[in-house]
């Protein structure tokens, strides 16, 4: 089965260029913030899509990440903290031909916006949620977020946080999400590629970006992203490919009963054939959930499209109902409606 993610019309950037997607606003993130790379990746990706500029709408909530729309020369709406999924839903239902992006932070979408997030996923509204996960509230100057590691000392947790962080991927799957991918602010090509795939997916796409906040949570993703360790702690998933990783490409992921395990190729007779082969399009979420859950240092962290399952979208179903009901329209005009049912004439 070929998923939508693969069928998207990718064309050479003939008409539009990165510059066409760059607005005249001064970018106001802290120097060194991972958000710059995300912006650049987006501005690189969009010209590769066969979508007119005016059909892109960037909706965001509140947070550092949520400043994103100001910097894109497209339609943009910087809304309320946590409410971007609902605004985006309205935009998509008003005009399903638009490509709707939701740019959001871990606080914006998983803390105050958690409910809209899970309901959007359940409904499978065809929007692309780009989740900047810096595991901190950046804009409010450094409180722990629902993805902060347990024990983290922040302004609001001087004794260390006692909360277990959400695993965005698991939450997405628990909320019946049809698309989940993970990428990294230090890998521009992979980001751009993932954005394109998210557009290709019909339904709610969630792209988690491991993003570094240099000011309030510097280095939180270091183990996964830094030059020295990344090969050992990133598992680059590609559909149809075996799950191999490691500096020497000699480690792999194997299923052991209902658990995953890291194995070494060559050791104990393990060969590539023993490894799991990634199937992003499998409807059953069991393995996707396990992959999303993998955490360093016990496991490598899965990067790439973990899940991309074709499921009817809310917007398609609504417009189908609209079309179908037009076949058996009860009233032609509002005047007909007003004059329907029991009426009487006074002379």
């Amino acid at each position, binding site marked *: 089965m070929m998923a939508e993610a693969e069928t998207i019309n990718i064309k050479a950037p003939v008409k539009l260029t990165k510059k066409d997607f760059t607005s005249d606003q001064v970018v106001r993130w802290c120097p060194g913030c991972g958000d710059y790379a995300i912006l650049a990746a987006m501005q690189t990706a969009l010209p590769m899509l066969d979508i007119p500029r005016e059909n892109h*709408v960037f909706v965001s909530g509140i947070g550092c990440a949520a400043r994103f729309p100001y910097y894109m020369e497209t*339609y943009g709406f910087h809304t*309320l903290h946590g409410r971007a999924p609902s605004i985006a839903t309205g935009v998509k239902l*008003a*005009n399903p031909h638009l490509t709707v992006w939701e740019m959001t932070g871990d606080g914006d979408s998983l803390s105050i916006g958690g409910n809209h997030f899970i*309901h959007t996923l359940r409904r499978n509204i065809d929007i692309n949620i780009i989740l900047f996960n810096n595991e901190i509230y950046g804009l409010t100057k450094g409180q722990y977020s629902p993805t902060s590691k347990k024990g983290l000392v922040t302004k609001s947790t001087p004794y260390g946080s006692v909360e277990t962080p959400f695993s965005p991927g698991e939450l997405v799957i628990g909320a019946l999400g049809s698309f989940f991918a993970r990428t990294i602010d230090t890998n521009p090509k992979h980001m751009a590629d993932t954005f394109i795939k998210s557009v290709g997916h019909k339904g709610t796409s969630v792209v988690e970006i491991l993003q570094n906040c240099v000011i309030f949570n510097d280095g939180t993703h270091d183990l996964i992203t830094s030059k020295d360790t990344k090969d050992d702690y990133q598992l680059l998933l590609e559909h149809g490919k075996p799950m191999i990783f490691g500096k020497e490409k000699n480690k792999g992921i194997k299923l052991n009963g209902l658990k995953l395990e890291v194995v070494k190729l060559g050791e104990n007779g393990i060969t590539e054939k023993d490894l799991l082969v990634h199937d992003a399009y499998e409807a059953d979420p069991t393995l996707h959930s396990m992959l999303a859950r993998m955490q360093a240092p016990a496991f490598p962290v899965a990067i790439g499209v973990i899940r991309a399952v074709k499921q009817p979208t809310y917007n398609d179903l609504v417009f189908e109902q609209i079309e179908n009901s037009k076949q058996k329209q*009860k009233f032609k005009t509002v005047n007909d409606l*007003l004059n329907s049912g029991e009426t*009487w004439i006074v002379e």
Partner: protein
Amino acid sequence: MVQELEKVVVKFAGDSGDGMQLTGSQFTNTSALMGNDLSTFPDFPAEIRAPAGTYAGVSGFQVQIGNTEINTPGDEVDVLVAMNPAALKVNLHSLKKGGIIIADSDGFDPKNLNKINLSSNPIEDDTLSEYKLIKAPITSLTKKSIEGLGLDTKSQARCKNMFSLGVMYWLFNRNIDSTVAFIDQKFKKDLQLGDANKKALFAGYHFGETIEATPSYTVKPAKIAAGKYRQITGNTALAWGLLAASEKTAKHLFFGSYPITPASDILHELSKYKYWDVKTFQAEDEIAAICSAIGASYAGDIGVTCTAGPGLSLKAEAMGLAIMTELPLVIIDVQRGGPSTGLPTKTEQADLLQALYGRHAESPLIVIAPNTASNCFDFAYMAVKLSIEHMTPVIILSDAYLANGSEPWKIPSVNNLPAIQIPIAKFDAENKYFPYERNVEKLSRYWAVPGTKGLEHRIGGLEKEDKTGSVSYDPVNHEKMIHIRAEKVARVAQYIPEQTVIGKEKSELLVVGWGGTYGALLTAVKELQLENESISLAHFNYLNPLPKNTAEVLGNFKKILVCELNTGQFAHYLRASFPQFKYEQYNKIQGLPFGVRELKEQIKKYLIK
């Protein structure tokens, strides 16, 4: 002997499960078809189906019909149908002395008497000596009438409301045909049940004929304006007004809502019109509901959201966003009793100050209130018109009384509704589009809809720079924008009708009201006018901004009496807006509409010179 009445108030009361709402509507429909003017007041409990026989479970439907103009469901009941002791006790206090009671004597059994701790049976002792009591073993007669149809006991019991309706039809010489047609339609898939219902209806009718306990009555058609009429409730009228606006503007209606009593029926009604591209979105909560509507408005639909008090509280933050981004948005608040969960099925007018001020910081918007079930249609339409033409949110304050009550409505033609100008922004290669450039008269900005080539732009909740709409923290710009937003709303006064006065323009006492209390206030004032009192009524529909002649109107009277179903919110607002006048108040906050008699009593206090 058939006695002719000018008007009569009838109330059907029984358990939630007894079908009293249906009985009441049928009686109402038939009377409407027979040409009466009328007004209804359904009154049901917060519980879906509270335990049978208890006070909590009583469901009532009151209707006043007349051959003259009728503006309220009536203070006092002339004829009460009581299916059990609880229904009798709850309603007895509003029954006119000498009024008629039709009691289902089967319902007055020891079990039901016990449930409300009655040791003696009121239909047997002398409790009702001041009334005309018709004891009818409705339950058992119903059963008997449909014996042999092979229905189970539960279905049999469900027919007794038709029996009581039959009795009333006989009593009031009503035409039985439309109810027969209704039953045929409703049970077209269960002919047996349809048959049973009809049998029960006729049995009741014949029972009335047989016992001839009282004279029977008739109410002649009312002399009302010629035309085609229908009945309508406030909630339906709101829904239809939105549909009319959508048709007129050729813009799709997007309705984002989360169910809540007494507003949910608007969602239910609108969800039928998918074929007119109406998108009803049942959101996960009120915040998502309003935000989806804002998103839809941004993308070019007519965004509407709808709720009651608790939901209005939740929508406060998002209203601020619509104000800042200057997008059209209609917010319907069907007011109910509060605070907090309060009295969810009862009526009240206590969300006014919240509608005016219930958002952080300086965030003015338009507030309007329909005053009859039927003109909910006009104000829903008007809300869309104002919201789009002035690019600002509009709150409609309806209430539980308007929402559920119904009245005959002379059907308007959509063709005659005022045009709606849409300030759409178009691409123009010569002139750059600035999101906050404005119409010089209205100060409204122009609506640039995503998907339009060349108008790409960014908006949001941070303060905007004048004209460009870029984010601006500039102090002077902020003050300017605060004033522009306020002035934009203030200028709406130039586009709405002036305030009218019913009665003399200049006189002793001006009664002031707003919204759903119109029927009662009008009736009271008119009756007092007939009694030659020097009194007029100014009933407000436009609350913010107020009509531009408001001060003038108020200034023409020696005394002003503001009557509201709250502790005095409109009076408070008028006092702050026009402190040069003195305002007296009459307030009631019992979850109930005003009664005409109580109003007249209160008003008279201010007529003593």
